[in-house]
């Protein structure tokens, strides 16, 4: 469901009128819901503070329902290339907090070439417009804070702006007020086009969302034979992507691989089966690492055969070994001495120096 965010009622006029939004009972006035469009509409009032506070409040309360925020409204042009009534989808949002530029920026998941700067005060002076034009093409009063709120609550955010005044104009407030309904109608038409996926803007092409698991992987992650911790889920996602990108294993092959493993190891607990699955996938993805591990295991054989437990660095970054052994008899001592004599630490050093060929 979408949340359309406007600063002023005038900007939202056509949306409220055409889509039959009705007031929604909330902590403050300004929230509406359209049963027909299955969409919320919020009027925040002017300025970044109001926009941020109210967007956060609504998103926090309706987070499960809202998956996209769209800021719609007026903006001033900072460049001669954008004229009054031009419509712009925003790419990146910057902010100027009255004394300096905010370093943080937010980029919409949307292809466009227009950047918007949110000013914490009304920009009236030509000299200021000129200075701000180094950073963006249009200026508004809310977008950055709405994007910031959306970012905080991990909700996708887009922005659709109409140019209400051009670079040269200085006193535009009255014009904007009197023409608000006209601007709103233009915005509504553009928004409707967008929803129908027939916008004339060549830039309406959403980027693929990164880090969303494929359906097959989701099936695997929810399989009760396995138990994935959060870290392991991330690891599985990375391995799945890597194996696919390298053309080694597609989604279906991954599922089939997991299924085969499940059948081959029926006695393993879900936790151990998951560990085994991830290790096996890692080895397929990176056979060199498998080779390194085998070499290390071989080098440690005199110790492990004697019952010494050896812990190596799981990241293979350090060649330090930690050993533990329970000594309870003279026989144990001799066993330990013999194992230590047979063990060649130099072999471990060699592996960590990159000598992992068969001729080691």
């Amino acid at each position: 469901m979408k949340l359309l965010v406007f600063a002023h009622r005038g900007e939202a006029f056509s949306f409220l009128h055409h889509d039959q939004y009705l007031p929604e009972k909330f902590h403050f006035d300004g929230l509406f819901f359209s049963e027909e469009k299955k969409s919320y509409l919020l009027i925040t009032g002017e300025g970044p503070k109001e926009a941020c506070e109210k967007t956060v409040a609504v998103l926090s309360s309706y987070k499960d329902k809202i998956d996209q925020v769209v800021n719609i409204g007026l903006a001033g042009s900072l460049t001669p290339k954008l004229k009054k009534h031009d419509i712009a989808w925003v790419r990146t949002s910057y902010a100027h907090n009255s004394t300096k530029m905010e370093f943080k920026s937010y980029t919409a998941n949307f292809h466009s070439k227009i950047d918007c700067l949110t000013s914490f005060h009304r920009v009236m002076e030509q000299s200021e417009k000129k200075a701000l034009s180094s950073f963006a093409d249009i200026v508004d009063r809310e977008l950055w804070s709405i994007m910031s709120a959306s970012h905080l609550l991990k909700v996708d955010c887009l922005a659709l702006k109409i140019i209400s005044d051009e670079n040269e104009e200085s006193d535009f407030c009255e014009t904007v007020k009197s023409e608000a309904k006209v601007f709103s109608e233009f915005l509504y038409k553009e928004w409707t086009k967008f929803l129908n996926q027939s916008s004339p803007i060549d830039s309406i092409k959403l980027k693929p969302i990164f880090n969303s698991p494929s359906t097959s992987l989701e099936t695997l992650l929810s399989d009760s034979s396995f138990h994935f911790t959060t870290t392991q889920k991330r690891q599985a996602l990375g391995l799945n992507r890597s194996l696919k990108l390298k053309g080694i294993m597609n989604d279906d092959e991954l599922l089939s691989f997991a299924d085969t493993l499940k059948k081959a190891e029926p006695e393993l607990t879900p936790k151990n089966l998951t560990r085994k699955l991830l290790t096996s996938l890692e080895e397929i993805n990176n056979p060199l690492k498998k080779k390194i591990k085998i070499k290390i295991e071989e080098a440690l054989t005199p110790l492990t055969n004697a019952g010494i437990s050896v812990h190596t660095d799981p990241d293979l970054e350090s060649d330090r070994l930690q050993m533990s052994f329970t000594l309870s008899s003279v026989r144990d001592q001799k066993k330990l001495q013999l194992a230590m004599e047979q063990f060649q630490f130099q072999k471990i050093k060699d592996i960590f120096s990159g000598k992992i060929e068969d001729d080691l």
Partner: protein
Amino acid sequence: MIFEKIFIEEQLINHPKVLEMKARFPESEFKLISKVEDVFGRVKKPYLQKRTNLNLFIGEKKGQLVKVAPPAYGLSGEPHYYFVHAYNCIYECNYCYLQGYFQSPDIVIFLNHEEIGHEIKRITFEHQKASPGKKVWFHAGEYSDSLALTHLTGELPFYFELFKNLPEAYLELRTKSVNIKELIKLSPSKNIVISFSLAPEERTKNNDLKTPGLKARLKAISELHERGHPIGLHLDPIIYDQNVVTSYSELIEQITRAIPPEALSYISIGVVRFTKNVFHQVLKNYPDSDFIHDDFVTSFDNKIRYNKPTRLWLLGKVKDLLISQGIASEKIYECMEESDVD
């Protein structure tokens, strides 16, 4: 190439290079600023916006103009410095550390080459005083490609003239470009090495986005060598895949067909590595690149690398391949950190 906006520091308004840029880019919007830092890097501009709108800044480099190079930079035993006459690059190598360095992909060029040259001279004389006859190296291209924009920036004649008069000082121009037309107008100098970064053909296609292909780079190497320019090579970053040995073997054969091994001044080899910030930028910008989901670990200095046996195996393997193709071992230097050297 089109720059959307060209920002110029006020004091350079009548600089011949600025006037030339104005004539060359009539469609760009020119804006005067008091200093580059007033706009460049003040906000986080997404890296991939370089694909759609790139701005150019023209200014004068302030602060330290020549800096001591990081460890593992160049042949050991000689002092190495780098100088900065530009920020950022027109290419888009998907492993590039510039993604996380400047917080903006916009190009900056500095025009105060005289001052940079003065500093290079001072450092060279200081070294000559302390160790007469010992080479001192200066590297260009730490934050930009040394050749890619030379047809616009035009600084090569200045540096060739400078180093002609500093025979103990060596200049390295590091590049992936084949933009050699300005270079071939100049007489080769034995203390100016043009060094090319190379990777196997598939890797070049997949990772060195928007750069000239391997064949074009090898052709440029061949041409420059024939004209007498000293050539260096960087096989860096090496990225692991299951065909790495075969692909590097082929690459080295291609190199030796383009230039006789004995003619190479040096070859550096290094394995892919990132700071944490750059690693996250790569993940964000190129989530579909085949190498970024590999098994990387946080290594001893908090940089993201392959595990130690893997990276040292890669270095050893590629070094062996180079030696087997007739490249002298003393010409090969491995870009690795202190802690990798046992």
